[in-house]
């Protein structure tokens, strides 16, 4: 899918430490941006509901907010810690890793 920016935020967790990042997808290495696009396509991200059900937060679990932007279009999805969808699990792991690297640079 066409995607220009991804905003990612993780809150909650035992430590309660917020992790957030804002990526310009064109700044990412080609293999990563390709993986991201494939995962978003596989999830049919634009059609996902704003809040994914079946992921209600439990004590100390993480909550994730993912916003995908392309031009004036944007879509935000809130999801809990243990999505059943393997693609969503992969997307969260990838965004977590990217967010950690992003923070490291600053």
């Amino acid at each position: 899918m066409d995607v220009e920016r991804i905003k990612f935020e993780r809150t909650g967790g035992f430590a309660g430490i917020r992790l957030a990042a804002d990526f310009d997808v064109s700044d990412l290495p080609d293999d990563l941006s390709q993986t991201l696009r494939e995962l978003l396509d596989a999830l049919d991200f634009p059609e996902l509901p704003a809040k994914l059900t079946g992921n209600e937060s439990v004590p100390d679990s993480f909550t994730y907010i993912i916003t995908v932007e392309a031009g004036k279009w944007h879509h935000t999805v809130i999801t809990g810690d243990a999505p059943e969808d393997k693609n969503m699990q992969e997307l969260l792991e990838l965004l977590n890793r990217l967010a950690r690297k992003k923070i490291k640079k600053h």
Partner: protein
Amino acid sequence: MHNHRHSLECILPEHMLEQIATKGSDAQKQMAMDNISVVYQLRAERAMRASLADLFAPTMPRAADGGKERIIYDVKRGASLPGTAVRREGDPASADVAVNEAYDGSGITYDLYKEVYGRNSINNNAMRLDSSVHYRTGYDNAFWDGKQMVYGDGDENLPAEDRLFNRFTIAIDIIGHELTHGVTQFEAKLVYSQQPGALNEHMSDVFGSLVKQYQSRQTTTEADWIIGAGLFTPNVNGVGIRTMKAPGSAYDDPVLGKDPQPAHMKDYVNTPSDNGGVHINSGIPNHAFYRVAMEIGGYAWEKAGMIWYVTLRDKLGENSNFQQCADLSHQAAGELFGSGSLEQQAVKNGWSGVGITIGGETPEPKGCLEATLRFLGAA
């Protein structure tokens, strides 16, 4: 149960959202509309969660001998719980340190509740203690899923120089913290949002810290009152995740930022994140407990811990706020040690030290409107 006017459920109040949806710019209107629907969804979810304990109660596995039974599972970096059983009650130590830490930590937590408070496991009915270690990859967290404990390995998937977190079984107070979420689920059933949620976190920190002190037989002055000591790698400038002695000073790090916990009601943090700041504002009652325990002295689990245990078991309800917790812990202290006793006086002084007067009305935390507008990008 006391009834106070202000429940402080001020996260994104609908009237404010509706005002923004009516009077804001186009972008603000859209954001407000989006959030109104989220608020309604969250409310339904909270109501559902409040009945979680009742739903799970009949299916909880029971210890075979009606006492202490632990099973540690290895998820082998997957997400399918509970995983493969690798150490059962009475088995010799494993070669896997996380397995042993989960086993020993849940055992000492069981012992504290049983020997000091007369409680037979999480549900007071010999519930088996199940723990899963090696959950997912690069998972820097631990949680209680309503039935069992789950522990990640921290940042094991990153190069050593980038790692911030060690494995989450490394600190015994984390294990006591997670198990206490289970106790709360069966007793006060504190809703995991806003002040009731911060009290839920607070109770887990209190008994997590008491498990650690009980294990080492530390007095109040010997204890470090740090939650999660040893969890950070040497790459982080911090002593732990939280400190009950001096909330807000556990870490100050260029990567992770600064410990955001307040130690006083005047610094209460209004935020829509983290279920309304449940891991942030817990600093206030945490510090109150620390002050109470220090004033009473000796072993904190004996008197201060007993007052808090009775408050959690018999007094608090699912929507209790800080003021109610203060009043009810004061009441519990009176019942346990006598009206006007030194212990009851210590409870009064402890809460007073964080800006809460027994029998008073806690001022409405300021900044709710500002926090809401900031969340909506309108200010």
